[in-house]
Structures are given as structure tokens and as C-alpha cells.
């Protein structure tokens, strides 16, 4: 073999790789080396071209020009099968799972062991999968349907899919965006273990602390081009962020101390059952005051979604009461709640927040189309709606060619801005923001956080639900931790620590922590 040592030590190399969609170059003349046995991080703003590049590596896209080398040899992959045969596997940004299939079926799909005549032999697969699951501490329920398992387990299923196919070059596209802090810690440990075994990993993430924690090298890409690669141990988070955005980024949201007023939202002894009649919120009580951001921290699936749905009227509560701006809104219809002064940035923006095939201006009118000035006597006033939309597009810096373009054509970040513009602009007494920055880059996050704090400063209440502790600590004034549908306690954001919150998220009530602290202090 004529390949020199340098090439052979590269798991993957891209040479002058360009990938164009029509006239638009999502990747432009990319040169990149991924060393064997390392974790290589990719960092870049939304739409920088990271996923595109990885889709090329996993055989889903074919490069417009340039070459791909795997283990020193030039390859031409035409499908993900080819990539699979070369030992490359990818966990996609949006999970590629079949909801209706069991975990095992999802793992084996496309590489099914069979008896004669194409009859599935899931028994054989099960053994291999359970072995892998044990080896890498990837706990799964093999017979559960994917639609019934947590996001964290879905992530583990995705990883097992790769391991099952004996991949040794693994690509993770924003794997942590949907994970809880503890799951993230687990994943980081697993990645480290894999690298130790000689596997190579490419990790895409917007979270700089993760890069600092596990990556060996980091490549920054901006607008389809490589800005540079650095050794992670030699660079600070700030340096990486600035490099990515091309300007200085502030992590800490500027905010003055809150001046809380009266309670705008009062939750008393609230219980909520989900569609399967399981009680997900249990006897919960708290207040959100005017002029403060109350953060709700907690691991995904501890009743946050049900709480938000109960407040907004999407789900009925089984007992307790909800008072918004001194008005009892318990079990009122959604519209009545909205009219009582609620703004809601929903968790799943594409499913709940927007009607993607409709125009931006129609989406901006989504909460107010039925009343003046958007409409009169049942007739929509498009002139007004469009003008209003243009105004908000400018005010909120939404990047779109026109207020009449389809909302689905906007980027994820800009779609989120449409929702924020709509909800904030009504100046609601209480704004609920559920994971408002999920999947967005630091620039966008910075912007959204600023808007939430603005809202607070205008004297309104903000209820921020987030799985990201950073976000919670950064934006909230007070923090409530939910565990198993119950209130673990409320703390001042300025006087708590990640450790304390972590304990509460794991199910230790605040008073217990305080007691044990006192005990320690007493000793």
C-alpha cells in the first residue's frame, strides 16, 4: 500500500469536498482529517453545513465534487449500505426510528438475521444486542415499542443500531440536544469508552462544555466552509464560540436583579393525568410573580409537559386550581386561557407552534386571527396582517424573503423567532417558554434569552421549562425542580448550584438537602 503513515492514521479524510443543492453550496471545498481513535468535534452555527457533511460521510448524499477517503482509501459511496460496509455509522440529528416497531426491530432493520427464506430470526439478534447493551451500559427494553420509550432510550437504540452493525467510525449529530444532564453524562462516558477501544467518533454539538469535556480536536465550520481546526485542550470555550460566530458572544445573559410583584400565576394542589390516565403532575403548588422568571428544572418526563399543557388548557387537570392574573382558568378552553393573558412558546415548535405550509403572516396571526384588527365580522384583513407581520419580521430580525413565504421554508431558528414574535408581542401577563432553544446555536440562544428577560423587565411573569441546567441557571430568577410530578423545592437562582439542583432532579427534596447540609455544618 502506498499510503503513508499520516493517511493510515486517518479514519476519514475529505479532500476538496463540495456539496451543492442546486446553486447553493452547503459544503464548499471542505478539507478535513479525522484521526483514528479520537473524538473530533464539529462546531458551527445552525445551517453551517455540519449535517450535510455528515450525510455525505454516511453515504446518504453524494458529493458534488471532491473525494472521500476512509482508512486511507478513496471511496465512492452511493448508499448508506456502502458506508455501513466501511464501518461508518451515524446517529442522525432527528432520530431515524420507526415508532411502531419494537426496539429490537429498529436495531436490526436493514441488517436482519434470517432463517431460510427470509424469515426473521430475532432470537439470534436479541443475544447480540443484549451483549452490546451490557458491554456499553446502554440500557434498553428490547420489546418495547419505540413510541413508548423515553427520548434517552431512543438515543441508546440509535447507538446500538451502529454497534450492531459493527461500526467503528461513529458520527453523532447533536446527540445531546434532547438529553437530560444525567443522560448527557452517561453518553459522554460511553463515547470515551468507545474511543478507548479504538473507535473513532465525530461529534456535532452546540454545547461547548461537552466539547471541552470529551473532544480531542475541534473543527469550526461557518457557511459551508472550514474556519479552522484546533486542539481542544489548547482553547477556551469563549475562543471556540467566537470562532464559530465570527464575533464575540456573551454567554451570560445580562440582567438586572428582578423586582418581583404580585403573583400572576397561582398553581394550587394541581394534579394532571395523561392520556393513559397515569397521574403525571401530583399535587403541585407554586406561584410565578410579575417581573420574574421562574425556571422549572427537571429530567424529561417528570411531568413538565403535562403541567404546561394543563396551564395552557390543552390538557384537563384532575384536581387543584390554576389562577392567572387573578382569574380562575382551571380547565378553561385554550382560547379563554390565551385571552386571559397567556403566551406559550410550545415545546415542539413544528408540531404545535406553527402551521408550516402557511405563510409567515398567517402564522403570526395564529392566536389572534379571529378578532380585531386581524379580522372583522369573520373576514380576515390580510392587508393588516401582512403589514403587522412585516413589522414583526423587522423587529425580531426574522430572516425570510417575505411575509408571504411559507413558514416551512424558514430555518429552524427563524421558525422559532416567528413563534416568539407572535407570543411576546401580545405582551402576555405570563409567558410559558418550553425548551425554547432546543437545537439552536449559541447566537440564536443569546437572542432568545434576551427576549425572555425583556419580557420579565416589562413586569410580566415568565415560566421557563428547560432540560438544560445552563439555561435555567442563566435566565431564571427562581428555580423550581420537578421530580416525578412533584415539587422538590424552589431555590433562588443566584444562591444555588448545579450540584444542589442535580440532587433535587434526582428526587431529593430541598428540605432534606438543607437538613443534611445543616448536619454537616453542625459536625
Amino acid at each position, binding site marked *: 500500500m502506498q499510503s503513508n503513515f499520516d493517511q493510515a492514521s486517518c479514519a476519514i479524510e475529505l479532500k476538496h469536498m463540495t456539496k451543492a443543492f442546486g446553486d447553493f453550496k452547503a459544503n464548499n471545498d471542505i478539507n478535513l482529517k479525522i484521526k483514528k481513535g479520537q473524538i473530533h468535534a464539529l462546531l458551527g452555527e445552525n445551517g453551517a453545513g455540519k449535517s450535510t457533511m455528515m450525510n455525505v460521510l454516511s453515504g446518504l448524499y453524494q458529493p458534488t465534487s471532491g473525494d472521500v477517503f476512509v482508512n486511507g482509501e478513496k471511496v465512492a459511496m452511493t448508499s448508506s449500505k456502502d458506508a455501513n460496509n466501511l464501518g461508518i455509522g451515524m446517529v442522525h440529528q432527528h432520530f431515524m426510528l420507526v415508532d411502531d416497531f419494537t426496539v429490537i426491530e429498529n436495531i436490526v432493520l436493514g441488517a436482519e438475521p434470517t432463517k431460510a427464506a427470509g424469515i426473521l430470526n430475532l432470537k439470534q439478534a436479541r443475544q447480540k444486542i443484549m451483549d452490546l447493551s451490557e458491554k456499553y451500559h446502554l440500557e434498553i427494553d428490547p420489546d418495547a415499542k419505540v413510541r413508548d420509550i423515553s427520548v434517552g432510550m431512543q438515543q441508546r437504540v440509535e447507538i446500538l443500531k451502529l454497534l450492531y452493525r459493527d461500526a467503528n467510525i461513529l458520527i453523532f449529530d447533536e446527540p445531546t440536544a434532547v438529553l437530560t444532564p444525567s443522560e448527557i453524562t452517561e453518553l459522554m462516558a460511553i463515547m470515551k469508552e468507545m474511543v478507548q477501544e479504538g473507535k473513532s467518533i465525530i461529534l456535532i454539538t452546540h454545547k461547548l462544555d461537552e466539547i471541552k469535556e470529551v473532544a480531542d480536536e475541534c473543527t469550526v465550520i461557518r457557511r459551508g466552509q472550514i474556519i479552522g481546526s484546533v486542539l481542544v485542550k489548547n482553547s477556551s470555550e469563549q475562543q471556540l464560540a467566537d470562532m464559530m460566530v465570527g464575533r464575540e458572544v456573551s454567554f451570560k445573559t445580562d440582567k438586572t436583579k428582578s423586582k418581583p410583584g404580585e403573583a400572576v400565576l397561582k398553581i394550587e394542589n394541581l394534579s394532571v393525568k395523561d392520556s393513559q390516565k397515569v397521574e403525571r403532575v401530583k399535587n403541585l403548588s407554586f406561584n410565578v410573580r410579575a417581573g420574574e422568571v421562574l425556571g422549572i428544572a427537571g429530567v424529561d418526563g417528570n411531568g413538565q409537559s403535562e403541567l404546561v399543557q394543563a396551564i395552557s388548557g390543552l390538557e384537563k387537570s384532575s384536581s387543584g386550581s390554576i389562577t392567572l392574573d387573578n382569574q380562575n382558568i382551571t380547565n378553561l378552553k385554550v382560547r379563554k386561557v390565551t385571552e386571559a393573558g397567556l403566551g406559550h412558546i410550545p415545546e415542539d415548535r413544528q*408540531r404545535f407552534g406553527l402551521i*408550516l405550509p*402557511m405563510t409567515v403572516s398567517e402564522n403570526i396571526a395564529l392566536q389572534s386571527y379571529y378578532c380585531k384588527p386581524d379580522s372583522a365580522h369573520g373576514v380576515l384583513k390580510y392587508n393588516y396582517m401582512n403589514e403587522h407581520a412585516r413589522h414583526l419580521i423587522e423587529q425580531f430580525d426574522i430572516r425570510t424573503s417575505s411575509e408571504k413565504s411559507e413558514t416551512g421554508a424558514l430555518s429552524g431558528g427563524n421558525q422559532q423567532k416567528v413563534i416568539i414574535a407572535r407570543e411576546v408581542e401580545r405582551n402576555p401577563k405570563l409567558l410559558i417558554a418550553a425548551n425554547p432553544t432546543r437545537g439552536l446555536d449559541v447566537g440564536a440562544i443569546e437572542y432568545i434569552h434576551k427576549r425572555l428577560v425583556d419580557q420579565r423587565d416589562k413586569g410580566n411573569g415568565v415560566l421557563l421549562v428547560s432540560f438544560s441546567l445552563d439555561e435555567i441557571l442563566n435566565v431564571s430568577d427562581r428555580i423550581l425542580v420537578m421530580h416525578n410530578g412533584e415539587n422538590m423545592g424552589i431555590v433562588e437562582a443566584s444562591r444555588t448550584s448545579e450540584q444542589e439542583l442535580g440532587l433535587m432532579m434526582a428526587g431529593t427534596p430541598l428540605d432534606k438537602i438543607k437538613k443534611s447540609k445543616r448536619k454537616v455544618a453542625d459536625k
Partner: protein
Amino acid sequence: MSKNWKSRLSIPLISILAGFVLGAIIMLCLGYDPIMTYEALFTGAWGDPNSIGETLRQATPLILTGLGFSVATSAGFFNIGGAGQYLVGWLSSIWFVLSFPSLPGVVLITGAIAAGAIAGGIWSGIAGVLRAYLKTNEVITTIMLNYIALYLSNWIVKSFLANGDADYSKSIPQSASLRSPFLMELTNNSTFHYGLFIAIVIAIIMAFVMKKTTVGYEIRSIGLNSDASKYAGMSTKKVIILAMTLSGLLAGIGGAVDGIGNYQNILVLASTPSVGFDGLAVALLAYGNPIGIVFASLLFASLKIGGLNIPVVSNTPSEIVDIVIALIIFFVGASYLFEYISKKMKTNKSKGGKA
């Protein structure tokens, strides 16, 4: 915007052309004369005032059943019950007129159309209510309701509306008819009637309702994303029922207008009326656009009425007309084909230029 309009019009036009060309090729292959056949088709539809009148009359109920289908589609429902809704509309309009034959004409006509609208609306409203409250699939319920409409209607006609043992109802009085001596004279005694103008006005109203009113906005929202619509405080149950009812109401008006304009009575039918299914095709041809539906109905009616002339003046089986209609709809649906071909031609050209 203007480009948008151009492309929106060009696809149907190319599809129509392609449908006719392919139809001609089929005829040539089987030894029929396409030119003569198409000439017969055209003169049969537009060749003289009488034919024009018949073509316009044929388009009338199609516009309404087409609008009905498209409203349900906008809300995300597949309403294949157009035939039954049309039929109950027809039945009710005639029933109404025959029950109060001595009322003044204006009252009779308005009442007949209202009766048809209400009956059609209730008929598909049943499917809407079942869908909204029990999540019953509307495809099944509307299919079943078609048959129920057929048997009930035949029974009612025989038992309550027929003269003695006849297989059709008594005819409506002249005062309740949408036909007029003026229109008959104009179109050389065709069955053309004022229903067409009603249909066109309703199409314009529907275009307005769907695009410019809050109700239309709600129907479209639910059809596109019901979760987001719930989030926005819309009552999905209400809108489902409303959309389905509106859908059947339009088909019911189609039946009423055809009843008091065209048939002037109601018959015992051997099978569900084809106008219901044809409305579906018309709506698909027009991408559900209300004004497009008017033109698609005219095209459809031209082919149907013109098609009757084919066996009179040539030996080509008249089924060629249905084949051509199917081909046109195929090309409208598969319009990506043209996009693909034009892309291919462009790249070939640029390749040729380089070489």
C-alpha cells in the same frame, strides 16, 4: 407572483394537451381516426348553441360537488360521499317543491335549494360528527352513507313522490324550475338553466370563504396541522363537523340545482349518481382551487357532452373520452414528470453546449 400564476396554469394546460395526444396515439394504434373523433368531441360540446347549453348544464352540478369535495380535503378529510350527498340534496329539493307546489316561484326555488343544502349537509355532517366524537373513519362512513342514500331515496320516491306506480316522482311546477324560456331560446332548447350562475356565485363565495375568512382559515389550519390548531385555541371538533357539513351542503346544493334545473323530478336510480365521483375528479384536476374547479368542471363537461357525439358520427367507442379524462388527471397529478423532462432537457442542452 406572476411566475407563480404562470406555472399554476401551465401544468393543467400541458396536462390537457398531453392527455389528448396520448388519447390520439391510443386511437391510432387501434385503428380509429383521432382527428375525426376529436372533431366530433369538440362540435358535440361547443359546436352549436344547444350543445353549449348542455355542456354548461352538465358543468353545473360538477362545480358544486367538486367544491364540496375540496372543502373536506382542505380540512384533511377524504369525503367520497359526494354521490350520496348530491342524491339526498336532489331528493329533498324535489320533495320540498312537491309538498308546497302552490307557493310562489321564488320561495319554491330558494326553499328547494335550502332543502337540498340542509339534507346534503346533514348527510355528511353525520360522518363529521362520528369523526369528531368517535374518531370514526370518514372514508368508511361516507361510502356506507352513499348506499343508504340510494336505497332510502328509491324507497321514498316510490312510496311518497311517485304518481301511482311510476318509477319517478311527479314533475315540479314550472314556477319552481330553474329553466327559463329565455335560456331555452338562447340555447336552442337545451336543458341549460340558471343553476350555472348559482354555482359560479357559490364558487366565488367559496374562494372568498376559504382564503379570506376566519372559518376558511380554521378549516385550512386543521387540515394542515391539527395539533397547532388546538394550540391556537381552535375547536377541532367544531371545525371538523363544520367542514364536513359544508362539504355535503355544497354537494346537496348540486343535487338540488340539478333536480329543479335539469331533471325537474327525481327518478328511482339503478346506482349511485356518477356526478358525485366526477366532482372528486374535478376537484383533483383543479388542485382544490374553487375558481379552478369552475374551469375543470367546464372541461369535464365538455368531454362528457362532446363524448356523446362520438358514437353518433364515428365508430370510435365513446369510452375514449373517459380514457382522455383519466390521462389528463394523471398528468396533472404526475406533473413532476414535466419538471423532470424540462430539467433533463436543460442539462442535455448545457452538455451539448460544452461539447
